């Protein structure tokens, strides 16, 4: 059997179950919609505009996440093969990480990780 077949099944099952669950409330619960009830919950402050100024820090976190995620992938691949590669692979990955360490130091120094 293709090992991805159960994955497909669980995917479909989760989607169907989740949709049914979230639609269930429409039929079981009372339905008395009113304009006030359908406002967003903002402690009495009305207005449906979410133009919040987002901090650019969130975005910097996401950038760093991508780049270090790729590093992790390379590390995983190396970890899987390192028993055959031995010292050679170790040296290779050390160079790789040393180069990325420069980037990490730059990030720390540049203050991109300082949340205030």
């Amino acid at each position, binding site marked *: 059997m293709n090992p991805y077949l159960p994955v497909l099944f669980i995917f479909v099952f989760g989607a169907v179950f989740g949709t049914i669950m979230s639609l269930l409330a429409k039929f079981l619960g009372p339905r008395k919609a009113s304009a006030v009830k359908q406002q967003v919950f903002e402690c009495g402050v009305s207005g449906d505009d979410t133009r919040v100024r987002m901090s*650019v820090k969130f*975005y910097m976190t996401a*950038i760093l996440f*991508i*780049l270090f*995620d*790729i590093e992790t992938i390379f590390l995983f691949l190396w970890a899987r093969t390192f028993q055959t590669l031995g010292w050679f692979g170790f040296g290779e990955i050390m160079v790789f990480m040393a180069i990325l360490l420069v980037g990490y130091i730059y990030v720390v120094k540049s203050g991109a990780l300082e949340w205030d």
Partner: protein
Amino acid sequence: MVPVEHYFVLALILFTIGVVGLVVRRHLIFVLMSIELMLNAVNLVFIAASRALGTLDGQIMVFFVITVAACEAAVGLAMVISLYRRYGTIATDFLRTLRG
């Protein structure tokens, strides 16, 4: 077994959709997403060819393409942020007037 040509045709269609998105949309975010689509079309060709030829080189190329795509997205979106903070818009039509 699916013949390798099928994958190539699919990749061709995917790439064309990316090109069309690039031409039609004038919003930098969509432009970048179209580029991701095009890169994915290339990845598909690499993997299909790698299987057809029975080598792993294509898969390793995909590895590098994904690395490049990540870097491209990071730098590209950094520029989007920077442009938006500076001019308040990221429509390519407007940005074209910045020449010179």
